[in-house]
């Protein structure tokens, strides 16, 4: 069928005339196949980072945490509980304390700077 080209809202006449030509040139959609970076860099800190490395990297890369501002320990604990209770992170109860301790030590309120 003949393609109808419509505009919505307040598009001006100038915009309309320029988009008419543009629409006719719209290329055919082509399949896409890409690679995404793995994002598997570990949290630093050796053995103290074991719990956070073993439990937290399945769903997100470490930079999400490392880019956070310094937060009070209670806020970090709430974040870990949210990951478990809302986002269903399969974290052993025994590891929660280690993860919170790591966050409070490395990303606590006194670690707000660089």
């Amino acid at each position, binding site marked *: 069928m003949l393609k109808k080209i419509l505009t919505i809202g307040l598009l001006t006449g100038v915009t309309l005339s320029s988009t008419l030509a543009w629409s006719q040139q719209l290329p055919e959609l082509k399949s896409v196949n890409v690679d995404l970076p793995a*994002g598997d860099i570990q949290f630093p800190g050796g053995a103290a980072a074991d719990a956070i490395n073993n439990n937290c990297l399945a769903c997100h890369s470490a930079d999400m945490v490392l*880019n956070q501002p310094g937060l009070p320990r209670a806020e970090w604990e709430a974040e870990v509980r949210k990951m478990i209770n809302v986002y269903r992170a399969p974290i052993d109860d025994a590891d929660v304390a280690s993860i919170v301790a790591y966050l409070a030590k490395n990303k606590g309120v006194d670690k707000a700077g660089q």
Partner: protein
Amino acid sequence: MNQDVVKPHGRKRLQTGSAGMFERQSSRRSFLRQIGLVGLSLAATPAWSEEIARLSLASGPRDRPITNDFPQKRNMILQRIRPPLLETPFEVFDRGVFTPNEHFYVRWHWAVIPNSVDAGTFRLSVRGRVNNILSLSLKDIVDDLPRVELVAVNQCSGNSRGYFLPRVPGGQWAHGAMGNAKWTGVRLKDVLDRAGVKAGAVQVRFNGLDEPVVPDAPDFMKSLDIDHARDGEVMIAFAMNGEQLPLLNGFPLRLIVPGWYSTYWIKMLSDIEVLDKPDDNYWMTQAYTIPDTPYANITPGQTGVKMVPISRMVPRSFITNIVDGATVPSGVRVAARGIAFGGDTGVVKVDFSSDGGKSWQSAKLGADYGKYSFRQWETDFMLADKGAHSLMVRCTNVANVVQPNVPNWNYGAFMRNVIETTPVTAA
């Protein structure tokens, strides 16, 4: 490191009064100068990263790598590798009213993202409270439905979260979790009409191809009221700025909800379900909710506030050619320019202040690409006295909504739209 590249914003570049309106510099050198190069290395900044952006957030960490590791993307601020959070360097907004696809910001909730989509076998399903269940191919959508186009701003609910005080956990965006594009596609209304919505429909729920890593975690889905879904403006886009969408911006189809925050703009849209009762899924009732107060503003620590789903955007405006901390010449007229948007309606006025908000002057507005688009503005000013000064810009929209003087705060760090201040030194 090349000293010339590290040098802060030069005075020569600011004295561009004779340049054409909204002319843009786009050299690599100016890009690097805008983001500010530093040599520090961070825990979150891998050693292999060549370039670092220093964001002017409320507190650290402020440094992020500039990445070229993501498909169909170039020179993005890396907030998170997986699932990707990529921010548009602010310099991009100075180059034009449309945000190029390769620099358009990226935000995903769950890490299971298909890395290939077959244009021939992809199907969009329409089901639920409808007369005819549909399974539409891309060809069905592109060839058989009326085509529409719209320019609209897409902005993350948490854009500028990194400026909230007290700080709030989440993606620590500067101002670059937004973009403006020309969207081409079909009206959602036409798709729903083809399926035939039955009486009793109250909402329409949208789902994409992304999935949680943990099977019983809440799949990311969003819903709109049936009347909104059928308003003729909400659309399903198959092109963005004249090209198919980058995979990370939702190839092959993305829901476009003009004037509303991006949380509703479902990427890789694959499933539309007409509901006969309000959607009670986590992403509607718990996540992306805001206090039901003016500016979604509460006192930090305040409890017992009625929460409602975030919805319409509010006006914002930015200076794009002068960065925080820039040195500008005193005693001569200096060009200022930038972008504004009205939120859920058009821009009627942009005002500029070079004295910290004591006095305001009207800026000249650029071309109008429709009420949901960025609108460029420009003006000039003179700082008579050497020393510290504050530049400010303020947008008023068609509904006479004005940016507020004080920043809002809420637990999600959503909906920032305070009048932004750019500190400069006159020399």
